[in-house]
Protein backbone atom coordinates (compact mmCIF):
# COMPACT_ATOMS: atom_id res chain seq x y z
CA UNK A 1 0.00 0.00 0.00
CA UNK A 2 1.16 3.50 -0.78
CA UNK A 3 2.30 5.50 2.19
CA UNK A 4 0.07 8.50 2.53
CA UNK A 5 1.58 11.69 3.75
CA UNK A 6 -0.67 12.87 6.51
CA UNK A 7 -1.97 16.40 5.98
CA UNK A 8 -2.44 16.58 9.75
CA UNK A 9 1.30 16.74 10.15
CA UNK A 10 1.35 20.14 8.53
CA UNK A 11 -1.81 21.45 10.12
CA UNK A 12 -1.44 20.14 13.66
CA UNK A 13 2.24 20.82 14.19
CA UNK A 14 3.72 17.43 15.16
CA UNK A 15 5.49 19.23 17.99
CA UNK A 16 2.17 19.57 19.79
CA UNK A 17 0.89 16.04 19.25
CA UNK A 18 4.13 14.19 19.91
CA UNK A 19 4.50 14.93 23.65
CA UNK A 20 0.90 13.90 24.28
CA UNK A 21 1.40 10.67 22.36
CA UNK A 22 4.66 9.95 24.17
CA UNK A 23 2.93 10.58 27.50
CA UNK A 24 0.20 8.14 26.51
CA UNK A 25 2.78 5.51 25.54
CA UNK A 26 4.46 6.00 28.93
CA UNK A 27 1.12 5.50 30.69
CA UNK A 28 0.52 2.37 28.61
CA UNK A 29 3.93 0.91 29.47
CA UNK A 30 3.54 1.81 33.15
CA UNK A 31 0.11 0.18 33.29
CA UNK A 32 1.49 -3.02 31.74
CA UNK A 33 4.40 -3.19 34.19
CA UNK A 34 2.12 -2.39 37.11
CA UNK A 35 -0.51 -4.94 36.08
CA UNK A 36 2.08 -7.67 35.60
CA UNK A 37 3.78 -6.80 38.90
CA UNK A 38 0.78 -6.56 41.20
CA UNK A 39 -0.98 -9.62 42.53
CA UNK A 40 -0.72 -12.23 45.29
CA UNK A 41 3.04 -12.23 44.66
CA UNK A 42 4.43 -8.72 44.21
CA UNK A 43 7.05 -8.41 41.48
CA UNK A 44 8.92 -5.06 41.41
CA UNK A 45 8.88 -3.13 38.10
CA UNK A 46 12.59 -3.73 37.38
CA UNK A 47 12.12 -7.45 37.77
CA UNK A 48 8.99 -7.37 35.58
CA UNK A 49 10.99 -5.72 32.81
CA UNK A 50 13.79 -8.26 33.31
CA UNK A 51 11.34 -11.17 33.17
CA UNK A 52 9.75 -9.78 30.00
CA UNK A 53 13.19 -9.45 28.41
CA UNK A 54 14.29 -12.96 29.46
CA UNK A 55 11.03 -14.37 28.12
CA UNK A 56 11.58 -12.74 24.74
CA UNK A 57 15.14 -14.14 24.68
CA UNK A 58 13.92 -17.63 25.62
CA UNK A 59 11.52 -17.59 22.68
CA UNK A 60 14.62 -17.44 20.51
CA UNK A 61 16.85 -19.80 22.48
CA UNK A 62 14.24 -22.18 23.85
CA UNK A 63 15.64 -21.83 27.36
CA UNK A 64 13.37 -22.78 30.31
CA UNK A 65 11.82 -20.03 32.42
CA UNK A 66 11.95 -20.23 36.19
CA UNK A 67 10.54 -18.59 39.35
CA UNK A 68 8.78 -15.28 38.87
CA UNK A 69 9.34 -15.48 35.13
CA UNK A 70 6.76 -18.26 35.02
CA UNK A 71 4.23 -16.17 36.95
CA UNK A 72 4.87 -13.27 34.59
CA UNK A 73 4.67 -15.21 31.33
CA UNK A 74 2.10 -17.88 32.06
CA UNK A 75 -0.30 -16.27 34.51
CA UNK A 76 -0.22 -12.51 34.42
CA UNK A 77 0.93 -11.58 30.93
CA UNK A 78 -1.80 -13.43 28.96
CA UNK A 79 -4.43 -11.64 31.01
CA UNK A 80 -2.71 -8.27 30.51
CA UNK A 81 -2.27 -8.82 26.78
CA UNK A 82 -5.93 -9.83 26.52
CA UNK A 83 -6.81 -6.57 28.25
CA UNK A 84 -4.64 -4.64 25.79
CA UNK A 85 -6.18 -6.29 22.74
CA UNK A 86 -9.79 -6.03 23.94
CA UNK A 87 -9.38 -2.44 25.18
CA UNK A 88 -7.85 -1.39 21.88
CA UNK A 89 -10.53 -3.22 19.90
CA UNK A 90 -13.50 -1.79 21.78
CA UNK A 91 -12.13 1.76 21.60
CA UNK A 92 -11.31 1.66 17.89
CA UNK A 93 -14.69 0.09 17.09
CA UNK A 94 -16.48 2.63 19.30
CA UNK A 95 -14.72 5.52 17.55
CA UNK A 96 -15.54 4.03 14.13
CA UNK A 97 -19.22 3.51 15.07
CA UNK A 98 -19.48 7.07 16.40
CA UNK A 99 -17.93 8.27 13.15
CA UNK A 100 -19.96 6.19 10.75
CA UNK A 101 -23.28 6.96 12.47
CA UNK A 102 -22.21 10.54 13.23
CA UNK A 103 -23.67 9.86 16.66
CA UNK A 104 -21.70 10.58 19.83
CA UNK A 105 -23.74 7.99 21.75
CA UNK A 106 -22.83 5.08 19.48
CA UNK A 107 -20.77 2.27 21.01
CA UNK A 108 -19.47 -1.06 19.69
CA UNK A 109 -22.52 -2.92 21.06
CA UNK A 110 -24.95 -0.75 19.07
CA UNK A 111 -26.01 -3.41 16.58
CA UNK A 112 -26.69 -6.28 18.96
CA UNK A 113 -23.22 -7.84 19.23
CA UNK A 114 -23.32 -7.86 23.02
CA UNK A 115 -26.78 -9.37 23.39
CA UNK A 116 -25.92 -11.95 20.73
CA UNK A 117 -22.72 -12.87 22.55
CA UNK A 118 -24.53 -13.04 25.88
CA UNK A 119 -27.19 -15.35 24.45
CA UNK A 120 -24.55 -17.58 22.84
CA UNK A 121 -22.65 -17.89 26.08
CA UNK A 122 -25.84 -18.48 28.07
CA UNK A 123 -26.96 -21.25 25.72
CA UNK A 124 -23.55 -22.89 26.11
CA UNK A 125 -23.45 -22.51 29.90
CA UNK A 126 -27.03 -23.63 30.53
CA UNK A 127 -26.60 -26.63 28.20
CA UNK A 128 -23.46 -27.53 30.12
CA UNK A 129 -21.07 -27.36 27.16
CA UNK A 130 -17.35 -27.52 27.95
CA UNK A 131 -15.74 -24.26 28.98
CA UNK A 132 -13.63 -24.09 25.82
CA UNK A 133 -16.64 -24.10 23.49
CA UNK A 134 -18.49 -21.25 25.24
CA UNK A 135 -16.55 -18.49 23.40
CA UNK A 136 -17.21 -20.16 20.04
CA UNK A 137 -20.93 -20.26 20.79
CA UNK A 138 -20.82 -16.62 21.91
CA UNK A 139 -18.92 -15.61 18.78
CA UNK A 140 -21.37 -17.38 16.48
CA UNK A 141 -24.39 -15.80 18.17
CA UNK A 142 -22.77 -12.33 18.22
CA UNK A 143 -22.06 -12.46 14.48
CA UNK A 144 -25.54 -13.86 13.79
CA UNK A 145 -27.07 -10.98 15.79
CA UNK A 146 -25.28 -8.39 13.61
CA UNK A 147 -26.35 -10.34 10.52
CA UNK A 148 -29.96 -10.18 11.72
CA UNK A 149 -29.65 -6.44 12.37
CA UNK A 150 -28.28 -5.87 8.86
CA UNK A 151 -30.99 -8.03 7.28
CA UNK A 152 -33.77 -6.23 9.19
CA UNK A 153 -32.50 -2.76 8.31
CA UNK A 154 -31.85 -3.44 4.65
CA UNK A 155 -33.77 -1.26 2.21
CA UNK A 156 -32.89 -2.48 -1.28
CA UNK A 157 -29.14 -2.05 -1.46
CA UNK A 158 -29.06 0.55 1.27
CA UNK A 159 -28.61 0.33 5.03
CA UNK A 160 -29.99 3.65 6.34
CA UNK A 161 -28.32 4.55 9.66
CA UNK A 162 -31.55 5.19 11.55
CA UNK A 163 -32.96 1.82 10.49
CA UNK A 164 -29.69 0.14 11.46
CA UNK A 165 -29.78 1.65 14.95
CA UNK A 166 -33.47 0.80 15.45
CA UNK A 167 -32.97 -2.76 14.16
CA UNK A 168 -29.99 -3.09 16.52
CA UNK A 169 -32.18 -2.05 19.47
CA UNK A 170 -34.89 -4.56 18.48
CA UNK A 171 -32.46 -7.45 17.95
CA UNK A 172 -30.73 -6.61 21.25
CA UNK A 173 -34.02 -6.59 23.19
CA UNK A 174 -35.32 -9.81 21.70
CA UNK A 175 -32.04 -11.67 22.31
CA UNK A 176 -31.86 -10.32 25.88
CA UNK A 177 -35.36 -11.68 26.48
CA UNK A 178 -34.20 -15.13 25.35
CA UNK A 179 -31.14 -14.85 27.60
CA UNK A 180 -33.29 -13.91 30.61
CA UNK A 181 -35.62 -16.82 29.87
CA UNK A 182 -32.71 -19.28 29.73
CA UNK A 183 -31.18 -17.90 32.93
CA UNK A 184 -34.46 -18.33 34.77
CA UNK A 185 -34.84 -21.87 33.44
CA UNK A 186 -31.32 -22.91 34.39
CA UNK A 187 -31.03 -20.98 37.62
CA UNK A 188 -28.22 -23.00 39.20
CA UNK A 189 -25.93 -21.63 36.51
CA UNK A 190 -27.26 -18.05 36.74
CA UNK A 191 -24.18 -16.82 38.57
CA UNK A 192 -21.88 -18.17 35.88
CA UNK A 193 -23.92 -16.43 33.18
CA UNK A 194 -23.93 -13.19 35.15
CA UNK A 195 -20.16 -13.36 35.57
CA UNK A 196 -19.77 -13.71 31.84
CA UNK A 197 -22.16 -10.89 31.10
CA UNK A 198 -20.29 -8.52 33.39
CA UNK A 199 -17.02 -9.03 31.58
CA UNK A 200 -14.01 -10.90 32.93
CA UNK A 201 -10.44 -11.25 31.72
CA UNK A 202 -9.63 -13.88 34.36
CA UNK A 203 -9.87 -16.95 32.15
CA UNK A 204 -7.63 -15.62 29.40
CA UNK A 205 -4.74 -17.76 28.27
CA UNK A 206 -2.35 -17.38 25.36
CA UNK A 207 -4.58 -19.58 23.20
CA UNK A 208 -7.53 -17.18 23.67
CA UNK A 209 -5.32 -14.20 22.89
CA UNK A 210 -4.14 -15.84 19.67
CA UNK A 211 -7.72 -16.68 18.71
CA UNK A 212 -9.06 -13.14 18.93
CA UNK A 213 -5.92 -11.48 17.59
CA UNK A 214 -6.73 -12.00 13.88
CA UNK A 215 -10.23 -10.52 14.33
CA UNK A 216 -8.77 -7.58 16.21
CA UNK A 217 -5.92 -6.91 13.79
CA UNK A 218 -7.98 -7.30 10.61
CA UNK A 219 -11.03 -5.49 11.98
CA UNK A 220 -9.11 -2.54 13.39
CA UNK A 221 -6.79 -2.51 10.35
CA UNK A 222 -9.74 -2.17 7.97
CA UNK A 223 -11.21 0.61 10.10
CA UNK A 224 -7.92 2.50 10.15
CA UNK A 225 -7.57 2.17 6.37
CA UNK A 226 -11.02 3.79 6.09
CA UNK A 227 -10.03 6.74 8.30
CA UNK A 228 -9.96 9.34 5.54
CA UNK A 229 -13.31 8.18 4.14
CA UNK A 230 -14.74 8.39 7.68
CA UNK A 231 -13.40 11.95 7.98
CA UNK A 232 -15.15 12.85 4.73
CA UNK A 233 -18.38 11.27 5.94
CA UNK A 234 -18.47 13.80 8.81
CA UNK A 235 -19.52 16.40 6.22
CA UNK A 236 -22.77 14.51 5.69
CA UNK A 237 -23.90 11.69 3.39
CA UNK A 238 -24.66 13.88 0.37
CA UNK A 239 -21.45 15.89 0.59
CA UNK A 240 -19.38 12.74 1.07
CA UNK A 241 -21.05 11.22 -2.00
CA UNK A 242 -20.39 14.40 -3.98
CA UNK A 243 -16.72 13.98 -3.01
CA UNK A 244 -16.69 10.49 -4.49
CA UNK A 245 -17.12 8.39 -1.33
CA UNK A 246 -19.56 5.48 -1.81
CA UNK A 247 -21.32 6.04 1.49
CA UNK A 248 -23.35 2.81 1.53
CA UNK A 249 -20.28 0.67 0.88
CA UNK A 250 -18.34 2.54 3.55
CA UNK A 251 -21.10 2.11 6.13
CA UNK A 252 -21.46 -1.61 5.44
CA UNK A 253 -17.72 -2.20 5.58
CA UNK A 254 -17.32 -0.31 8.87
CA UNK A 255 -20.25 -2.15 10.43
CA UNK A 256 -18.88 -5.56 9.38
CA UNK A 257 -15.26 -4.88 10.41
CA UNK A 258 -16.18 -3.31 13.75
CA UNK A 259 -18.76 -5.99 14.54
CA UNK A 260 -16.37 -8.85 13.79
CA UNK A 261 -13.69 -7.38 16.04
CA UNK A 262 -16.18 -6.60 18.80
CA UNK A 263 -17.81 -10.01 18.54
CA UNK A 264 -14.45 -11.72 19.07
CA UNK A 265 -13.73 -9.54 22.10
CA UNK A 266 -17.18 -10.14 23.58
CA UNK A 267 -16.93 -13.88 22.99
CA UNK A 268 -13.72 -14.28 25.01
CA UNK A 269 -14.05 -11.71 27.78
CA UNK A 270 -17.77 -10.91 28.00
CA UNK A 271 -19.45 -7.53 27.83
CA UNK A 272 -17.18 -4.76 29.04
CA UNK A 273 -19.16 -1.54 29.06
CA UNK A 274 -18.30 2.11 28.51
CA UNK A 275 -14.73 1.63 27.19
CA UNK A 276 -15.86 1.89 23.56
CA UNK A 277 -18.10 4.83 24.36
CA UNK A 278 -15.86 6.95 26.56
CA UNK A 279 -12.32 6.45 25.21
CA UNK A 280 -12.97 7.98 21.76
CA UNK A 281 -14.53 11.07 23.36
CA UNK A 282 -11.56 11.48 25.65
CA UNK A 283 -9.12 11.12 22.75
CA UNK A 284 -11.05 13.66 20.64
CA UNK A 285 -10.70 16.24 23.40
CA UNK A 286 -6.92 15.99 23.36
CA UNK A 287 -5.95 14.84 19.85
CA UNK A 288 -8.80 16.23 17.73
CA UNK A 289 -11.45 14.58 15.59
CA UNK A 290 -9.49 13.33 12.55
CA UNK A 291 -9.90 9.55 12.31
CA UNK A 292 -6.32 8.97 11.17
CA UNK A 293 -5.19 10.12 14.61
CA UNK A 294 -8.33 9.26 16.55
CA UNK A 295 -8.38 5.53 15.71
CA UNK A 296 -4.76 4.60 16.54
CA UNK A 297 -4.65 6.81 19.64
CA UNK A 298 -7.97 5.34 20.81
CA UNK A 299 -6.37 1.90 20.47
CA UNK A 300 -3.48 2.91 22.78
CA UNK A 301 -5.71 4.73 25.28
CA UNK A 302 -8.29 1.93 25.36
CA UNK A 303 -5.58 -0.66 25.88
CA UNK A 304 -4.09 1.24 28.84
CA UNK A 305 -7.50 1.94 30.34
CA UNK A 306 -8.69 -1.65 30.22
CA UNK A 307 -5.46 -3.00 31.71
CA UNK A 308 -5.75 -0.52 34.59
CA UNK A 309 -9.46 -1.29 35.06
CA UNK A 310 -8.69 -5.01 35.16
CA UNK A 311 -5.92 -4.38 37.69
CA UNK A 312 -8.41 -2.49 39.83
CA UNK A 313 -10.93 -5.32 39.49
CA UNK A 314 -8.58 -8.04 40.74
CA UNK A 315 -7.02 -5.99 43.55
CA UNK A 316 -10.29 -4.60 44.99
CA UNK A 317 -13.73 -5.92 45.94
CA UNK A 318 -15.14 -4.84 42.59
CA UNK A 319 -13.91 -8.22 41.33
CA UNK A 320 -14.96 -7.89 37.67
CA UNK A 321 -13.52 -5.60 35.05
CA UNK A 322 -16.93 -4.84 33.52
CA UNK A 323 -18.11 -3.54 36.91
CA UNK A 324 -15.06 -1.27 37.15
CA UNK A 325 -15.40 0.21 33.66
CA UNK A 326 -19.11 0.84 34.13
CA UNK A 327 -18.66 2.35 37.60
CA UNK A 328 -15.90 4.67 36.39
CA UNK A 329 -17.19 5.20 32.85
CA UNK A 330 -20.72 6.28 33.74
CA UNK A 331 -19.83 9.29 35.91
CA UNK A 332 -16.97 10.14 33.58
CA UNK A 333 -19.33 10.27 30.62
CA UNK A 334 -21.66 12.55 32.59
CA UNK A 335 -18.69 14.83 33.24
CA UNK A 336 -17.96 14.91 29.50
CA UNK A 337 -21.59 15.81 28.80
CA UNK A 338 -21.50 18.52 31.44
CA UNK A 339 -18.49 20.04 29.72
CA UNK A 340 -20.71 20.33 26.66
CA UNK A 341 -17.98 19.06 24.41
CA UNK A 342 -19.00 15.45 24.22
CA UNK A 343 -18.85 15.41 20.42
Amino acid at each position, binding site marked *: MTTIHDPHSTTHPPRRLLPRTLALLAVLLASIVLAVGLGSVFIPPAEVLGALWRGVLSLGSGAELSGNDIIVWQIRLPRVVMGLVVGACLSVCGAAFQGVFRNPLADPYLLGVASGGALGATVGIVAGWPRSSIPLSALAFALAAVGATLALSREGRRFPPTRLILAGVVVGSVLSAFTTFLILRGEDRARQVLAYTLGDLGFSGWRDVLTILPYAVIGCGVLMALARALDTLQLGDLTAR*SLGVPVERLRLLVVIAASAATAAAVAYVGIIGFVGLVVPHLVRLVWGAGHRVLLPISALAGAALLVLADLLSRTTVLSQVGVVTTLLGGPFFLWLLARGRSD
Partner: protein
Amino acid sequence: MTPIQETHSHTLEAHALHVRAGTFAAVQEVSATFPAGVFTAVIGPNGAGKSTLLRALLGLSPPEHGEVRLLGRKLADWPRSERARTLAYLAQGEGLPDTAQVRDVVALGRGAGAWRWGLIPTRPWTDADESAVTDALTRTDTLRFEHRRVSELSGGERQRVSLARALASQPRFLLLDEPTNHLDLAYALDVIRYVRCEVAGGLGVVAVLHDLNLAARADALLLLHQGRVLAAGPPEEVLTPALLHTAYGIHAQVIRHDGRLVVLPQDGGEGV
Protein backbone atom coordinates in the same frame (compact mmCIF):
# COMPACT_ATOMS: atom_id res chain seq x y z
CA MET B 1 -9.76 38.46 -17.82
CA THR B 2 -9.96 35.58 -20.24
CA PRO B 3 -13.12 35.47 -22.30
CA ILE B 4 -15.31 32.47 -21.62
CA GLN B 5 -15.94 30.40 -24.71
CA GLU B 6 -19.62 29.62 -24.98
CA THR B 7 -19.05 26.29 -26.68
CA HIS B 8 -20.91 23.08 -26.14
CA SER B 9 -18.13 21.56 -24.07
CA HIS B 10 -18.00 24.28 -21.38
CA THR B 11 -21.40 23.61 -19.93
CA LEU B 12 -23.38 21.53 -17.49
CA GLU B 13 -26.64 20.57 -19.17
CA ALA B 14 -29.89 18.90 -18.28
CA HIS B 15 -31.79 17.26 -21.13
CA ALA B 16 -35.48 16.48 -20.55
CA LEU B 17 -34.70 15.41 -17.00
CA HIS B 18 -37.26 13.43 -15.00
CA VAL B 19 -36.42 12.68 -11.38
CA ARG B 20 -38.55 10.95 -8.78
CA ALA B 21 -38.36 11.57 -5.07
CA GLY B 22 -40.09 8.50 -3.66
CA THR B 23 -43.29 8.14 -5.68
CA PHE B 24 -43.47 11.85 -6.40
CA ALA B 25 -42.24 13.20 -9.75
CA ALA B 26 -40.11 15.98 -8.30
CA VAL B 27 -38.52 17.14 -11.54
CA GLN B 28 -40.28 16.78 -14.91
CA GLU B 29 -39.02 17.51 -18.41
CA VAL B 30 -36.40 19.96 -17.20
CA SER B 31 -33.92 21.08 -19.81
CA ALA B 32 -31.43 23.76 -18.97
CA THR B 33 -27.88 24.80 -19.78
CA PHE B 34 -25.49 26.10 -17.15
CA PRO B 35 -22.39 27.60 -18.79
CA ALA B 36 -19.00 27.99 -17.13
CA GLY B 37 -18.31 31.52 -15.92
CA VAL B 38 -22.01 32.17 -15.36
CA PHE B 39 -23.84 32.46 -12.05
CA THR B 40 -27.26 30.84 -12.41
CA ALA B 41 -29.77 31.00 -9.56
CA VAL B 42 -32.49 28.35 -9.35
CA ILE B 43 -35.62 29.81 -7.78
CA GLY B 44 -39.16 28.66 -7.16
CA PRO B 45 -41.54 27.98 -4.27
CA ASN B 46 -41.03 25.18 -1.75
CA GLY B 47 -41.45 21.78 -3.35
CA ALA B 48 -40.79 23.08 -6.87
CA GLY B 49 -37.95 20.56 -7.29
CA LYS B 50 -34.95 22.88 -6.88
CA SER B 51 -32.87 20.68 -4.56
CA THR B 52 -33.83 17.54 -6.46
CA LEU B 53 -32.66 19.14 -9.71
CA LEU B 54 -29.37 20.09 -8.07
CA ARG B 55 -28.81 16.52 -6.81
CA ALA B 56 -29.61 15.14 -10.26
CA LEU B 57 -27.09 17.53 -11.83
CA LEU B 58 -24.51 16.16 -9.38
CA GLY B 59 -25.36 12.56 -10.19
CA LEU B 60 -26.54 11.96 -6.60
CA SER B 61 -30.16 11.26 -7.66
CA PRO B 62 -30.29 9.18 -10.83
CA PRO B 63 -32.90 10.49 -13.30
CA GLU B 64 -35.75 8.32 -14.48
CA HIS B 65 -35.42 9.64 -18.01
CA GLY B 66 -33.32 12.27 -19.62
CA GLU B 67 -29.69 12.87 -18.98
CA VAL B 68 -27.13 15.25 -17.58
CA ARG B 69 -24.11 16.21 -19.66
CA LEU B 70 -20.98 17.61 -18.10
CA LEU B 71 -18.50 19.26 -20.48
CA GLY B 72 -20.25 17.52 -23.35
CA ARG B 73 -19.99 14.03 -21.87
CA LYS B 74 -22.82 12.05 -20.27
CA LEU B 75 -22.55 12.35 -16.50
CA ALA B 76 -23.10 8.60 -16.07
CA ASP B 77 -19.97 7.95 -18.17
CA TRP B 78 -17.71 10.00 -15.91
CA PRO B 79 -15.49 8.03 -13.51
CA ARG B 80 -16.73 8.80 -10.01
CA SER B 81 -13.51 10.40 -8.83
CA GLU B 82 -13.15 12.67 -11.86
CA ARG B 83 -16.75 13.73 -11.61
CA ALA B 84 -16.19 14.54 -7.92
CA ARG B 85 -13.24 16.77 -8.82
CA THR B 86 -15.12 18.58 -11.60
CA LEU B 87 -18.44 19.13 -9.82
CA ALA B 88 -18.39 20.56 -6.31
CA TYR B 89 -21.43 20.60 -4.03
CA LEU B 90 -22.30 22.66 -1.04
CA ALA B 91 -25.28 20.95 0.60
CA GLN B 92 -27.99 22.75 2.48
CA GLY B 93 -26.89 23.11 6.11
CA GLU B 94 -23.72 21.10 5.53
CA GLY B 95 -22.51 19.45 8.72
CA LEU B 96 -19.01 20.26 9.88
CA PRO B 97 -17.33 18.20 12.62
CA ASP B 98 -17.21 20.53 15.64
CA THR B 99 -13.87 19.40 17.01
CA ALA B 100 -12.07 19.49 13.65
CA GLN B 101 -9.72 22.29 12.65
CA VAL B 102 -10.70 24.55 9.78
CA ARG B 103 -7.76 23.62 7.59
CA ASP B 104 -8.40 19.89 8.03
CA VAL B 105 -12.02 20.33 7.00
CA VAL B 106 -11.01 22.21 3.85
CA ALA B 107 -8.41 19.53 3.08
CA LEU B 108 -11.26 16.96 2.99
CA GLY B 109 -12.54 18.66 -0.17
CA ARG B 110 -9.21 17.82 -1.74
CA GLY B 111 -9.44 14.09 -1.08
CA ALA B 112 -11.84 13.72 -3.99
CA GLY B 113 -10.38 11.94 -6.95
CA ALA B 114 -7.82 9.88 -5.10
CA TRP B 115 -9.71 6.93 -3.73
CA ARG B 116 -9.32 3.20 -4.23
CA TRP B 117 -12.81 1.64 -4.26
CA GLY B 118 -13.85 5.13 -3.22
CA LEU B 119 -12.64 4.34 0.28
CA ILE B 120 -8.87 4.38 0.61
CA PRO B 121 -6.70 7.29 -0.56
CA THR B 122 -4.31 6.03 -3.23
CA ARG B 123 -2.39 9.14 -4.07
CA PRO B 124 0.14 10.65 -1.68
CA TRP B 125 -0.69 14.08 -0.32
CA THR B 126 1.44 16.53 -2.28
CA ASP B 127 2.55 20.13 -2.08
CA ALA B 128 0.06 20.83 -4.88
CA ASP B 129 -2.74 19.61 -2.57
CA GLU B 130 -1.40 21.73 0.24
CA SER B 131 -1.26 24.86 -1.92
CA ALA B 132 -4.76 24.19 -3.34
CA VAL B 133 -6.04 24.10 0.25
CA THR B 134 -4.19 27.33 1.10
CA ASP B 135 -5.57 28.90 -2.06
CA ALA B 136 -9.17 27.94 -1.19
CA LEU B 137 -8.66 29.31 2.35
CA THR B 138 -7.24 32.56 0.97
CA ARG B 139 -10.03 33.12 -1.53
CA THR B 140 -12.69 32.75 1.16
CA ASP B 141 -10.77 34.83 3.74
CA THR B 142 -10.62 31.90 6.12
CA LEU B 143 -6.84 31.51 6.14
CA ARG B 144 -6.42 33.66 9.24
CA PHE B 145 -8.43 31.21 11.36
CA GLU B 146 -7.24 28.01 9.66
CA HIS B 147 -6.12 26.51 12.99
CA ARG B 148 -9.31 27.29 14.89
CA ARG B 149 -11.82 24.59 15.70
CA VAL B 150 -15.12 24.62 13.83
CA SER B 151 -17.01 24.93 17.14
CA GLU B 152 -15.41 28.35 17.69
CA LEU B 153 -16.75 29.82 14.43
CA SER B 154 -19.86 31.92 13.74
CA GLY B 155 -22.49 30.76 11.25
CA GLY B 156 -21.13 33.05 8.55
CA GLU B 157 -17.56 31.86 9.10
CA ARG B 158 -18.68 28.22 8.95
CA GLN B 159 -20.38 28.82 5.62
CA ARG B 160 -17.17 30.31 4.24
CA VAL B 161 -15.25 27.27 5.48
CA SER B 162 -17.74 25.03 3.65
CA LEU B 163 -17.26 27.17 0.55
CA ALA B 164 -13.48 26.79 0.86
CA ARG B 165 -13.97 23.02 1.27
CA ALA B 166 -15.99 22.97 -1.98
CA LEU B 167 -13.40 25.09 -3.82
CA ALA B 168 -10.43 23.01 -2.63
CA SER B 169 -10.86 20.44 -5.41
CA GLN B 170 -10.57 23.28 -7.97
CA PRO B 171 -13.87 22.32 -9.63
CA ARG B 172 -15.27 23.54 -12.96
CA PHE B 173 -18.80 23.81 -11.58
CA LEU B 174 -20.03 24.60 -8.09
CA LEU B 175 -23.60 23.68 -7.09
CA LEU B 176 -24.90 25.33 -3.95
CA ASP B 177 -28.15 24.43 -2.16
CA GLU B 178 -29.45 27.48 -0.32
CA PRO B 179 -26.00 28.71 0.70
CA THR B 180 -27.44 31.82 2.37
CA ASN B 181 -30.03 30.03 4.50
CA HIS B 182 -30.02 31.09 8.17
CA LEU B 183 -27.38 33.74 7.51
CA ASP B 184 -27.75 37.40 8.43
CA LEU B 185 -28.02 39.62 5.40
CA ALA B 186 -24.41 40.84 5.65
CA TYR B 187 -23.10 37.24 5.65
CA ALA B 188 -25.50 36.25 2.87
CA LEU B 189 -24.17 39.09 0.71
CA ASP B 190 -20.65 37.97 1.62
CA VAL B 191 -21.33 34.46 0.30
CA ILE B 192 -22.72 35.91 -2.94
CA ARG B 193 -19.67 38.18 -3.25
CA TYR B 194 -17.19 35.28 -2.85
CA VAL B 195 -19.18 33.19 -5.33
CA ARG B 196 -19.17 36.13 -7.78
CA CYS B 197 -15.35 36.33 -7.62
CA GLU B 198 -15.09 32.64 -8.53
CA VAL B 199 -17.54 33.11 -11.41
CA ALA B 200 -15.35 35.93 -12.73
CA GLY B 201 -12.50 33.41 -12.67
CA GLY B 202 -14.46 31.03 -14.92
CA LEU B 203 -16.30 28.81 -12.44
CA GLY B 204 -19.82 27.80 -13.43
CA VAL B 205 -22.17 28.30 -10.46
CA VAL B 206 -25.68 26.95 -9.96
CA ALA B 207 -27.23 28.10 -6.69
CA VAL B 208 -30.64 27.35 -5.24
CA LEU B 209 -31.73 30.62 -3.61
CA HIS B 210 -34.88 31.46 -1.69
CA ASP B 211 -34.32 35.19 -1.39
CA LEU B 212 -35.43 36.68 -4.72
CA ASN B 213 -33.49 39.89 -4.11
CA LEU B 214 -30.28 37.88 -3.72
CA ALA B 215 -31.22 35.83 -6.79
CA ALA B 216 -31.57 39.09 -8.73
CA ARG B 217 -27.80 39.44 -8.44
CA ALA B 218 -27.26 36.30 -10.54
CA ASP B 219 -26.47 36.38 -14.26
CA ALA B 220 -29.31 34.05 -15.12
CA LEU B 221 -32.34 32.63 -13.37
CA LEU B 222 -34.16 29.33 -13.70
CA LEU B 223 -37.66 29.52 -12.24
CA LEU B 224 -39.14 26.14 -11.35
CA HIS B 225 -42.79 25.51 -10.60
CA GLN B 226 -44.23 22.08 -9.77
CA GLY B 227 -41.12 20.37 -11.07
CA ARG B 228 -41.11 22.12 -14.43
CA VAL B 229 -39.25 25.09 -15.85
CA LEU B 230 -41.60 28.06 -15.78
CA ALA B 231 -39.06 30.57 -17.07
CA ALA B 232 -35.35 30.84 -17.73
CA GLY B 233 -33.20 33.76 -18.69
CA PRO B 234 -31.71 36.98 -17.34
CA PRO B 235 -33.32 38.38 -14.13
CA GLU B 236 -35.26 41.02 -16.12
CA GLU B 237 -37.13 38.31 -18.03
CA VAL B 238 -37.83 36.03 -15.09
CA LEU B 239 -38.59 38.38 -12.22
CA THR B 240 -41.84 39.75 -13.64
CA PRO B 241 -45.03 40.28 -11.65
CA ALA B 242 -46.91 37.85 -13.89
CA LEU B 243 -44.42 34.98 -13.49
CA LEU B 244 -44.04 35.60 -9.75
CA HIS B 245 -47.81 35.43 -9.43
CA THR B 246 -47.96 32.11 -11.29
CA ALA B 247 -45.08 30.56 -9.34
CA TYR B 248 -45.56 31.93 -5.85
CA GLY B 249 -49.16 33.13 -5.87
CA ILE B 250 -48.10 36.60 -4.76
CA HIS B 251 -48.74 40.06 -6.09
CA ALA B 252 -45.37 41.71 -6.32
CA GLN B 253 -43.96 44.87 -7.71
CA VAL B 254 -40.57 44.64 -9.38
CA ILE B 255 -38.58 47.86 -9.44
CA ARG B 256 -35.13 48.73 -10.65
CA HIS B 257 -32.87 50.39 -8.13
CA ASP B 258 -29.19 51.18 -8.73
CA GLY B 259 -29.25 48.97 -11.82
CA ARG B 260 -30.55 45.97 -9.86
CA LEU B 261 -34.00 44.46 -9.67
CA VAL B 262 -35.84 44.55 -6.36
CA VAL B 263 -38.93 42.43 -5.70
CA LEU B 264 -41.48 44.06 -3.41
CA PRO B 265 -44.28 41.69 -2.40
CA GLN B 266 -47.59 43.44 -1.79
CA ASP B 267 -49.74 42.92 1.29
CA GLY B 268 -52.79 40.79 0.77
CA GLY B 269 -51.05 38.19 -1.35
CA GLU B 270 -51.96 34.56 -0.85
CA GLY B 271 -48.87 33.94 1.25
CA VAL B 272 -45.19 34.44 0.53
